[in-house]
């Protein structure tokens, strides 16, 4: 019986891909393990192997086709004796077997491209812009800083030869060599400590954690060695370095791989903490982080890596720490968020606008230092505030902001501040549960309606 070969999902975040090249042609006999095609995913070019044996009856999608959705039939296999003509017949019924509720890893909704313009631009008016993914922006930031400061180096698991587990360090080994782009064994506690020691010794390490979940192996060095030494040495020495990597939930990777550490690190005096949303902020903040004389925790997000934004095309673009960004001005309510939380905040603001609620959306960008001034000023204008983050509800950044606002703008508040957060549960694997465990745009909209009494 003729069977269809469907466009495979080849990464946790892949929804579509490019069918770069066919490595078989119609009429070829293949066995399990043969490579059928090369497929470009959001992260890499992958070889797609045959699972069953048979004869290639027909190639349905031409090589070079971009944007082929996962589960689209791409070829028809026939068995011996079956004619290729028969194979052309089966209706290209879209993947009857794949239930609609299980698209590849689409846990996080893709947000509307934020249209609102930054109120206080970080670059001069008229600067030419280019479109870049967050991933590219981060790589450029590291490359630029490595060019200008010979003491900056990167180390971590798979950062060099593999080009980064999430391809953030792509090309750095080629340009800077293995003295400065260093693959480590899987030993986070050890190499984080070596990084801190190297920073004491005069270097400026960028320590990549494959994800921040694994930084828990190293948390003693981050807190006890990196964050506290300046203080303990009476200012004689500290740890000018960056710990960076993806943080928070990816898609369907379960409890041990899906946690937002923003509030954990933001609690620690001696650390600085950045958590960018856009590509421009990722670039500008990472450059500032590398130059900063303190240990900086730089929290990226796997789902955001592939998102494109405008990035200023200028020499040495940086974004200062401690300065929030107003993505959208509004008068009815202040929505404060950071990192991937911004996608819910912005999407909610857009939907609320349709209902006549005018939300101001603030992206904190750095959590330590935190731009209290911008938040308080906005709350004094709107008299209402909703915070949005992916982390747990107890001890959240939103909890801290609520307390701060209560102490410093109590008389301006017309409603209690509401914190929208991830749920108070470990991250479940099941697609339907995962969606509910994360903060959702609808929850933000509901919270805004509560504080605006609509």
């Amino acid at each position, binding site marked *: 019986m003729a069977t269809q070969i*469907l466009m495979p999902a080849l990464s*946790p975040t892949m929804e579509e891909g490019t069918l770069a090249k066919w490595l078989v042609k119609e009429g070829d006999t293949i066995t399990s393990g043969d490579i059928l095609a090369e497929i470009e995913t959001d992260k890499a070019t992958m070889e797609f192997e045959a699972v069953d044996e048979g004869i290639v009856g027909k190639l349905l999608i031409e090589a070079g086709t971009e944007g082929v959705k996962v589960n689209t039939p791409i070829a028809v296999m026939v068995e011996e004796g079956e004619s290729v003509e028969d194979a052309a017949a089966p209706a290209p019924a879209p*993947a009857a077997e794949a239930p609609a509720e299980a*698209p*590849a890893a689409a846990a996080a909704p893709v947000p509307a491209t934020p249209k609102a313009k930054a109120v206080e631009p970080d670059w001069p008016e008229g600067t030419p812009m280019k479109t870049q993914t967050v991933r590219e922006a981060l790589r450029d930031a590291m490359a630029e800083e490595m060019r200008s400061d010979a003491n900056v180096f990167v180390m971590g698991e798979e950062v060099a030869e593999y080009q980064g587990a999430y391809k953030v360090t792509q090309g750095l080994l080629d340009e800077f060599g293995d003295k400065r782009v260093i693959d480590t064994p899987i030993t986070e506690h050890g190499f984080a400590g070596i990084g801190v020691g190297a920073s004491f010794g005069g270097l400026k390490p960028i320590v990549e954690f494959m994800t921040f979940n*694994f930084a828990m192996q190293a948390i003693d060095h981050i807190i006890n060695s990196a964050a506290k030494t300046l203080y303990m040495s009476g200012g004689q020495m500290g740890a000018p370095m960056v710990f960076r990597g993806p943080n928070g939930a990816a898609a369907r990777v*379960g409890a041990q791989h899906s946690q937002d550490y923003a509030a954990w690190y933001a609690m620690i005096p001696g650390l600085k903490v950045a958590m960018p949303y856009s590509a421009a902020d990722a670039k500008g903040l990472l450059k500032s982080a590398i130059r900063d004389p303190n240990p900086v925790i730089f929290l990226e997000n796997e789902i955001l890596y592939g998102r494109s934004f405008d990035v200023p095309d200028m020499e040495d673009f940086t974004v200062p720490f401690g300065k929030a960004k107003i993505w959208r001005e509004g008068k009815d309510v202040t929505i404060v968020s950071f990192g991937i939380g911004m996608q819910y905040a912005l999407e909610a603001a857009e939907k609320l606008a349709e209902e006549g609620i005018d939300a101001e959306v603030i992206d904190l960008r750095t959590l330590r230092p935190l731009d209290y001034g911008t938040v308080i000023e906005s709350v004094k204008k709107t008299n209402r505030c909703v915070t949005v983050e992916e982390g747990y509800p107890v001890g959240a950044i939103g909890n801290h902001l609520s307390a701060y606002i209560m102490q410093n703008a109590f008389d301006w508040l017309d409603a209690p501040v509401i914190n929208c957060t991830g749920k108070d549960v470990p991250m*479940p*694997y*099941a697609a339907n549960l995962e969606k509910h465990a994360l903060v959702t745009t609808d929850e933000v909209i509901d919270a805004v309606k509560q504080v605006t009494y609509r």
Partner: protein
Amino acid sequence: MAARKPAAKPNVSPDELRQYYRDMLLIRRFEEKAGQLYGMGLIGGFCHLYIGQEAVVVGLEAAASEGDKRVTSYRDHGHMLACGMDPNGVMAELTGREGGYSKGKGGSMHMFSREKHFYGGHGIVGAQVPLGAGLAFADKYLENDRVTFTYFGDGAANQGQVYETFNMASIWKLPVVFVIENNQYAMGTSQKRSTSTEDIYTRGAPFGIPGELVDGMDVLAVKAAGDKAVAHCRSGKGPYILEIKTYRYRGHSMSDPAKYRTREEVQKMREERDAIQNVRDLLLTGGHATEDDLKAIDKEIKDIVNASAEFSKESPEPALEELWTDIYAEAVPQGDAIEA
């Protein structure tokens, strides 16, 4: 094909040999099916296939007795099938459904079975090593004569906690077999690039733990080494290390472009060293099974795997209330009651 060398003289009965063939084939076919379901978007996130390494767990399970425990990393599907967990429940966990071993809440990397003494399924590289020693600690404390198989990779062998564990396991004479599944790569890092010495099994020596290197493409060699290690542990002499040289044929996970090794390297392993093919040859050349016997096994396995795929698609998604359950326990079995 010609270069294939039949495994050494069987140290087991023909029935046992046929059983190993069946058990290894079940893992291989199950994993191939899981790969297919992943490609279709029915399985999400990370999914680490065990294809190529089947002889390791099948050989060691053959050396285990009822009540012995096992704990491993995220590359865990093979371990679960080999210790007798239900393929339906494993596959349904991969698809995140109610019928899965963790009700869909754990996923590929996190499954457990109290009944089969399978203690997970752990996502943090190296973390299962002290956990395994802890299980052995409990067994020693409860004086129940059990042994724990603690599996970890060549990459995990560089985590500091492994050596902290070696030390304690040795001074407390814990009945634990440390099984280093050396498939020669940790994601894209070959063992050569990450490890200061060529052998990992010798790393127990400074702690007084005996170790040996085992050919992991030969299920009989694995079984023999397992028997020896288990006897050592059960006699109260403390831990034992088996470094089992094996090979994974697929990428590290489904999203690994695998540019760090050549296709020829993989192909050569498959063609010359494949553990399943080895046993197949041994069965046929030794006259322990006919082509028809093996066909019947192939068919049985195919049916089991297809049924598990069906089950995993038909099992409903977990109820939304499940989001809020299993965060705190009312009571957990303690001590000997754990077996009840």
